[in-house]
């Protein structure tokens, strides 16, 4: 078993004990939520804000592991895993790159602000 496989197995075990596959707001745990927003709509138009974006960013604001939580997915096909909210392994999706472990973070995350946020942390459609 190589290191990556070992990590994957550990993450799977943690997930099996602590995760609800539909719960992506349980901060501090590893959860599973697919599909991922950036994979679901790779060709999204600039003004397309998808439902999964909303869920994803709501998770960010909830102080959970955010997209990393929603993507706290242990996906063997990607050859990597989300651990404590950041991605370990070879990144494949946009979310993997953005939330890769080891980045030089600017400052502690804070909730997004604004009057056009929806209660679930998403954003309202643009005015026509």
């Amino acid at each position: 078993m190589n290191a990556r496989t070992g990590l994957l197995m550990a993450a799977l075990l943690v997930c099996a004990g602590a995760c609800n596959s539909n719960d992506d707001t349980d901060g501090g745990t590893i959860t599973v939520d697919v599909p991922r927003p950036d994979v679901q709509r790779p060709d999204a138009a600039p003004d397309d804000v998808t439902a999964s974006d909303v869920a994803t960013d709501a998770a960010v604001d909830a102080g959970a592991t955010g997209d990393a939580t929603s993507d706290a997915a242990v996906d063997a096909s990607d050859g990597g895993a989300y651990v404590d909210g950041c991605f370990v392994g070879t990144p494949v999706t946009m979310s993997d790159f953005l939330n890769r472990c080891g980045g030089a973070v600017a400052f502690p995350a804070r909730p997004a602000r604004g009057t056009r946020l929806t209660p679930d942390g998403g954003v309202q459609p643009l005015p026509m």
Partner: protein
Amino acid sequence: MATSKALLAPALCASAALFAPAAGAQRCDDAATFPNRVVISGSTAIRPLVRRVGAILAAARGAERVTLVYNTSRGSCSGVAALAGATSGAPQAATGTAEVYNGLDPDHLPGAIPTCTMPAEGLAIDLALSDVYPTECAGVNAARLRDTRVVVLPFEFIGPALNADESGVDAREAYQIYGFGASTAGVTPWTLDARVFQRSASSGTQITVARAIRVPEGRFQTPTSNALSGTGDMVSRVAAAMTTPALGFAGTDATNGVRGTQLRGLAYRHWGQREFYYPDSTAASFDKRNVRDGHYPLWGYEHAIVVSDASGAPVNAAAARVADVLSGAAPLPGGDDIQRVYARSYLVPLCAMEVSRSRDGGDLSLEQPDAPCPRLFECSYPGASATCAPCTDNGACAGGVCRRGVCEAR
């Protein structure tokens, strides 16, 4: 407060001078004064780099000498459209004035750059610089254009140096501010419409930011007077807000050099991203670490575009050579390395990137350049703490590779 303003005022004047060309008396088509002329139009975001390279090319001797004539009255897509017009029999000439760089020191450029005056009929554009792929420009037929990606240009949201109310902006916040208008969006501290700035729908900078924040580039909501014609205007207007919160965006080659004196670069959190990241590892460094490894997605490729014939060969050899110099395919006269020039200009050489993308705002992929240069970059950017002992062969590199005079890991 008054003291701060007094200190900043000279800096703002210097900024205005930096971006303001000197009035030109020479005609741009004077071949004796401006030999081997290549007329450039398009991006203004990359202006500091063009000035530096223009001075190097103007100082070269013999056939290597090229006079860049840089018409800065257009944005990326306007420049590309003007160049592409030549392929459909409807060329648009560069008119007005243009910057020229004869006799300038590339490392000590003056505040006021000399200009020349275009002939009344204008001059045909030979090379377009664009912050976005030509195919992103509405209405442009890119079939006869040779597009070369030359360097990575990071962009950042910016505020005035003297205001520290907020250090980062979330993609959803930028979406609200630019999609609904600042006063409607209510994203503190950027709630004054008069203090939020944009470029235009044909600006490559704006297109890149638009793709990221998912607001169409033609639907940014700011007062009309806050739609700025160039990067220089953006820097000046945001800096002029002084202690008041203000928000704009520009390329790092224009913002990094005035960081702390005029501007503050803001961290950014993308859609679905957990944390905020600067382009660099800290607010004070210039290492572009988060751009290079994929944590910071606000960047695009700078493109050098020339017209080609039916066989794909460039129709203007001098313009093609400038594009080749910019891409590193042809040597930079004088012995400097264009990749080092990029690093010193707050840009990221393609060979220093760990990620790539195939379209503006598109998803990232892992990148393994054929001839990687991360070490060269890390000992060349402004303020770099790393030093690179020069090498001449692989034997000095402990299992690595001696490339461009520096030991790289592979």
